[in-house]
């Protein structure tokens, strides 16, 4: 089927809007060019695309971006209590002054631009590679754009167990910033790494994370997308999992005008584990879209998708989650749950769960629910003296907790819980 001119023109506009990176190694240049071609041939996203039906990509592709005032608040930064290597970006640009020295025992780390200017074999095998794999069978044009143009970000290779996590902090200062960041992480065999990300990042943020976990490796990802009401973001997380490896990614989103989080996971070795979870709370002109694609192409792997959305005053939550089990992926254990909690009649939760199974010996289940706060529970709490507002908060936190519980490190999970509780309590006052 011919790609509509609207999509093709849109792709050209996107590519023209961001400068072509220069001065990079020839291998990097060809990766960039291939990505640009992917986008040029398949076109920019439009509302008519199957996976953009519920989320209008217009404000993600328009030129220039819609202004988004940075949101002033006096909250202590998240993960501030954790011992971590803090790397700060301001409107998508790495700031050496605000960051810790870029070094950590147990990892090789360097800015993406450096990695792409030299001939680092592991980076060659990763940059743009997982993103390109993730383009089939579903187009991910914004991620292709990111590979073609993003110059900010880090390349990280993990050996062993670094003593602390790396924390990307994305600050937003410029109301018109249009930022792209591309991070690649290679977790070597038996290594174990935790990546933390938080902050609103930019007026418009396009972020890609490619994670390659070798056999017996583990990657933990906890992310909190900043609370700016006006910001827009499209993110793509692409993971490839070796044998007996673990991938756990959790995202907290509170507010933001539009967030589209895509996550593409592929099991290539047996006995892997992948948990992808998200908790979001939004009100008013808030749209949050989780689009997840898990491919089982190995034996005895376990995947879990747990997504919870609390919506109020016209907010809209979207979940599109797919589990694809290839013919040889026997003993697959796939689980998927997506739930919307609507705090009023104006809000909406749309879910599109998909299972596509070609193996015969698998256990896959999925469920999706959408409803209001349970009045019986609310009354029980109130009858003990808890105010309606506080009772609702307790139930909201309880509802989200199934997703938060997917975070393996209890201290990080408690950080997220405390942050959420504080946000909810502040709302009440």
């Amino acid at each position, binding site marked *: 089927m011919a790609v509509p001119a609207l999509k093709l023109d849109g792709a050209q506009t996107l590519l023209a809007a961001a400068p072509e990176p220069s001065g990079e190694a020839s291998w990097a240049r060809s990766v960039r060019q291939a990505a640009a071609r992917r986008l040029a041939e398949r076109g920019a996203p439009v509302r008519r695309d199957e996976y953009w039906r519920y989320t209008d990509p217009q404000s993600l592709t328009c030129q220039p971006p819609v202004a988004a005032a940075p949101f002033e608040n006096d909250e202590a930064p998240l993960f501030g209590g954790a011992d971590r290597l803090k790397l700060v970006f301001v409107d998508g640009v790495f700031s050496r002054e605000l960051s810790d020295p870029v070094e950590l025992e147990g990892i090789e780390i360097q800015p993406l631009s450096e990695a792409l200017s030299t001939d680092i074999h592991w980076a060659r095998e990763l940059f743009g590679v997982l993103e390109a794999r993730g383009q089939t069978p579903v187009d991910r044009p914004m991620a292709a754009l990111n590979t073609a143009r993003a110059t900010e970000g880090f390349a990280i290779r993990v050996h062993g167990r670094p003593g602390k996590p790396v924390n990307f902090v994305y600050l937003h200062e410029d109301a018109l910033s249009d930022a792209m960041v591309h991070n690649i992480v290679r977790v070597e065999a038996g290594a174990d790494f935790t990546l933390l990300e938080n902050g609103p990042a930019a007026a418009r943020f396009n972020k890609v994370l490619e994670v390659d976990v070798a056999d017996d490796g583990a990657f933990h990802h906890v992310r909190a997308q900043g609370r700016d009401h006006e910001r827009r973001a499209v993110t793509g997380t692409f993971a490839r999992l070796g044998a007996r490896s673990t991938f756990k990614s959790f995202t907290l989103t509170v507010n933001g005008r539009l967030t589209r989080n895509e996550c593409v996971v592929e099991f290539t070795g047996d006995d892997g584990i992948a948990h992808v979870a998200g908790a979001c709370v939004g009100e008013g002109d808030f749209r949050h879209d989780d689009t997840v694609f898990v491919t089982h192409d190995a034996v005895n792997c376990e995947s879990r998708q747990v997504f919870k959305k609390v919506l109020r005053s016209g907010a809209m939550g979207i979940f599109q989650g797919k589990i694809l089990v290839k013919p040889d992926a026997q003993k697959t254990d796939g689980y998927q749950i997506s739930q919307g909690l609507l705090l009023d009649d104006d809000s909406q939760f749309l879910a599109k769960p998909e299972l596509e199974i070609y193996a015969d010996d698998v256990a896959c289940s999925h469920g999706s629910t959408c409803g209001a706060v349970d009045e019986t*529970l609310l*009354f029980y709490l109130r*009858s003990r003296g*808890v105010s309606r507002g506080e009772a609702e908060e307790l*139930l909201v936190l*309880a509802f989200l907790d199934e997703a938060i519980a997917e975070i393996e490190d209890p201290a990080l999970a408690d950080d997220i819980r405390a942050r959420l509780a504080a946000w909810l309590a502040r709302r009440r006052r």
Partner: protein
Amino acid sequence: MLTIKNLHAGLEEEDKKILKGVDLEVKAGEVHAIMGPNGSGKSTLSYVLAGRDGYDVTEGSVEMNGSELLDLEPEERAAAGLFLAFQYPVEIPGVGNMTFLRTALNAQRKARGEEELNAADFLRMLREKAKALDISQEMLKRPVNVGFSGGEKKRNEILQMAVLEPKMCILDETDSGLDVDAMKLVAQGVNALRGKDRAFLVITHYQRLLDHIVPDVVHIMAEGRIIKTGGPELALEVEHNGYADILKSVA
């Protein structure tokens, strides 16, 4: 303590009257029992008193310690000293028992203008009260009532009552589902709270509970009204003869 006058109430959604003129006065320091056939409106009375949605009060009034109870939100009634031990306590996944109890206690204290209890003092107090009811640390850590057996749920209700120290306690069939030993624990829990500033309204089907929690007054409820009031001997009469004679005698 509690004065109910000519209370009429029905369902909001359907045209169904359940309480058809309940009159009841419970004085401070007293224990009253309510017995009555299934469906006579005992739980409905307790829900209306606690302020549950879905009921329409069409006539009558309820006064508790001088304030008009029916004008208050459920949480205000609790802060004013009302407590209902539910016939069917609900499970609340994701809300820890301890968090719940502490939130509730502090919310009530705050509403009354008292200082909130700090975590350490609260924990000490809770441990002690849980022990008396044979509720394990592990149960305290679990989400509210989740995975509790029927009897454990009832004991947990009494624990909540012990922690919140309400003035007017309504127990809706707290004895059903309890084994003999648990019943004794629950009765001990209730008796420990008995005092001149506190009153109890105990809804039950069985005389057995009243052996342990000896009531001052026993009421028989039928078809939405209190049809007979007497002393503890009334419960014995019900135990032996059922409700038929009593219903006939007032008909």
